[in-house]
């Protein structure tokens, strides 16, 4: 156990050091002429992979266009221009705001644009382009509070929400010291929290605040009156040392600024997408039925991830259980360490580690990472199920078998396992059911499971509760249906 922990620590250290030194080698400041390979690599693969967190209108948000969820907004128009100027195709990757910079550092994306402010702290780990947009800070509040709330100062003793890690989050933390700060990953969750009185205001940057206020009845945006802390405005983030990409983006930004494209074209366009959210036809599109394909796809992914993981988990679990029961001290030690370690760490961290940590060494796509992590996790739990199934078989069975001349392994194969399986099947069914629920955590790395899809629908429709309700019902149908199915098969097995 200790040995294994040491070993793992070593691996993590090596992986991290490799990653960090890899970045340090190519450290550069903003005036350096580009000598790096980043731009030529992007050109060679013909696409610029952009990471964003599309819940930040009008910067980036999703829109259901002909049944497909598309990321639109000002930032996306800028990205299009940047990609166009490089002469490559634009590919958009959605993920949580918090995961964006990690994704950039681990090479999952080439650049990040997400209404992200250029801060000295962030600039330590990534290289920024020039600022392309700077706006003030607003508070989104309920219309009914308009009389009492005039600025962040009116919110003493009340709760202010902000997107975790955002500039507004820090402003609230530093200046609104008399208020409680509630950080959440998603703006849509913040809006929901405001509507359900969990918080009294949301600190957002001005265009975003206005976009939400305009599209959500009962909400308004007011100036927050934060003191300026030297914010530089939004910029595009690139990996440390990707000077060639920074230079290219700066050229595009200069052109955007000289032609005033943001105010003339990009913001009005984004506004149009948002505005349709209120028209009559859009109301129909906002009905949950219009999003049925999203939910269906989500159910499909969730079932697929759980089913594949339970199969791999079963094979791995059998191997681990046999190792654990074996007399070989090394095999036993490995198995015990693995089981204890996996069961003693959260699945969420395991998923992040596989996706981002191993991502430094080999590039594993999100879906595969999710399946690997959930399978490896499930293996540890299934191993215990199988072990207790095997241990429940009376020793007399082994003795009778060995006395007939069957070897240890033959005894396991012909006598013990077939009997143990009768106990193991129902437990495996339970594992499948719990995997359906627990696999929901893969959405944090952008796997398009049911949770992820419900997030998209929430962001698309500006409706917080309905998609959650539907998602909950769908999960219940899956788990309940499955446990009924298992009962049915169990019944048939005992009839045998």
């Amino acid at each position, binding site marked *: 156990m200790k040995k294994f922990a040491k070993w793992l620590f070593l691996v993590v250290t090596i992986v991290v050091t490799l990653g960090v030194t890899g970045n340090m080698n190519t450290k550069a400041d903003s005036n350096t002429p580009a000598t790096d390979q980043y731009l030529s690599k992007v050109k060679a693969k013909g696409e610029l992979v952009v990471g964003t967190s599309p819940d930040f209108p009008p910067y980036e948000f999703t829109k259901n266009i002909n049944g497909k969820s598309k990321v639109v907004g000002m930032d996306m128009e800028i990205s299009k221009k940047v990609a166009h100027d490089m002469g490559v195709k634009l590919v958009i990757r959605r993920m949580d705001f918090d995961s964006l910079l990690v994704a950039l550092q681990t090479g999952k994306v080439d650049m990040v644009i997400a209404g992200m402010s250029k801060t000295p702290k962030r600039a330590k780990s990534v290289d920024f382009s020039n600022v392309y947009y700077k706006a003030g800070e607003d508070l989104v509040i309920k219309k009914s509070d308009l009389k009492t709330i005039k600025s962040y100062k009116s919110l003493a003793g009340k709760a202010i929400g902000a997107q975790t890690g955002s500039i507004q989050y820090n402003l609230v933390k530093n200046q609104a010291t008399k208020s409680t700060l509630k950080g959440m990953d998603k703006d849509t969750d913040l809006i929901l929290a405001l509507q359900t009185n969990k918080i009294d205001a949301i600190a957002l940057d001005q265009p975003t605040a206005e976009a939400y206020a305009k599209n959500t009845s009962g909400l308004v945006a007011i100036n927050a009156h934060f003191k300026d802390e030297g914010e530089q405005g939004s910029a595009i983030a690139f990996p440390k040392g990707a000077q060639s990409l920074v230079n290219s983006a700066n050229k595009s930004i200069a052109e955007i600024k000289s032609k005033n494209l943001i105010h003339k074209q990009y913001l009005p366009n984004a506004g149009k997408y948002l505005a349709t959210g209120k028209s009559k036809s859009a109301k129909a599109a906002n009905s949950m039925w219009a999003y049925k394909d999203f939910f269906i796809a989500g159910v499909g992914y969730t079932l697929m991830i759980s089913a594949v993981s339970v199969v791999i988990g079963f094979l791995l679990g059998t191997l681990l259980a046999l190792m654990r029961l074996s007399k070989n001290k090394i095999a036993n030690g490995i198995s015990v360490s693995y089981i204890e370690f996996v069961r003693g760490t959260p699945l969420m961290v395991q998923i992040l580690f596989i996706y981002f940590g191993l991502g430094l060494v080999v590039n594993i796509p999100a879906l595969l990472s999710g399946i690997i992590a959930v399978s490896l996790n499930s293996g540890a739990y299934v191993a215990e199920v199988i072990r207790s199934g095997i241990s429940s078989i009376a020793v007399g069975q082994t003795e*009778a078998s060995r006395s*007939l*001349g069957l*070897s240890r392994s033959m005894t396991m194969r012909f006598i013990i396992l077939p009997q143990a399986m009768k106990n193991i099947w129902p437990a495996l069914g339970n594992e499948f059911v719990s995997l359906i629920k627990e696999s929901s955590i893969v959405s944090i790395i952008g796997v398009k499971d049911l949770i992820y899809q419900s997030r998209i629908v929430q962001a698309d429709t500006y409706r917080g509760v309905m998609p959650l309700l539907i998602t909950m019902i769908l999960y219940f149908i899956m788990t309940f249906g499955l446990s009924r199915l298992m009962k049915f098969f169990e019944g048939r097995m005992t009839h045998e």
Partner: protein
Amino acid sequence: MNNETVTPVLEVKHLKKVFGQNEVLKDINEQVSNGQVICLIGPSGAGKSTFLRCLNMLDQPTSGEVLFEGQDLTKLDDKRLDKTRENMGMVFQSFNLFPHKTVIENIKLAPVKVKGEDDATATATAEKLLKQVGLENKADAFPASLSGGQQQRVAIARALAMNPKVMLFDEPTSALDPEMVGEVLKVMQDLASEGMTMVVVTHEMGFARNVADKVWFMADGYIQESAEPKTFFEHPETDRAKDFLAKILEA
């Protein structure tokens, strides 16, 4: 004199078995020759089962030798030990039939998987053995549907299917209802009269008296007496044996 004929089928020398602090077998030295029927008797906890399990190495002796046809089993590797066990059938107090297999599958399993017999041969042998133990109509039944006496007879047939040279019985009738004891003892008696070498741990004094060639009395980690049944039952030498017999006859 031909040396081979006097080599005992089984022989133990200075056999010792310790569980933790518990010295169960202290120093056992005995022989079983071909065709002999030994009845091993003694008080509960004396180490009879442990001794039997040391004979086919289900339990590893702490020290001493276990010789089967002159070969020391304590020195064999796993593979050759598995091979040797084929020649030593064992019947347990609690039958230990494989519940997920039918009667005939129970019997055929080892011949097919271990000896590599083809299915037809194994089936023929199994049917013959089922007839021998009087259960030819139960071939396709599952163990759970049989009475204790029937299960134990299947267990005997299953052990015989490997065509062993020795049969070890560990209280084969102790878990049975009284009315079923007879049918199992009858099968064992037939086996003895056909010349099978047998070591039987039992509390059935009648069986020991009538069928055994020799009775071993075990207590306190030693074989205290080894004698013909008549001698043992009529003139026990040690106080330990006298005590034991007195208690048995009282019951």
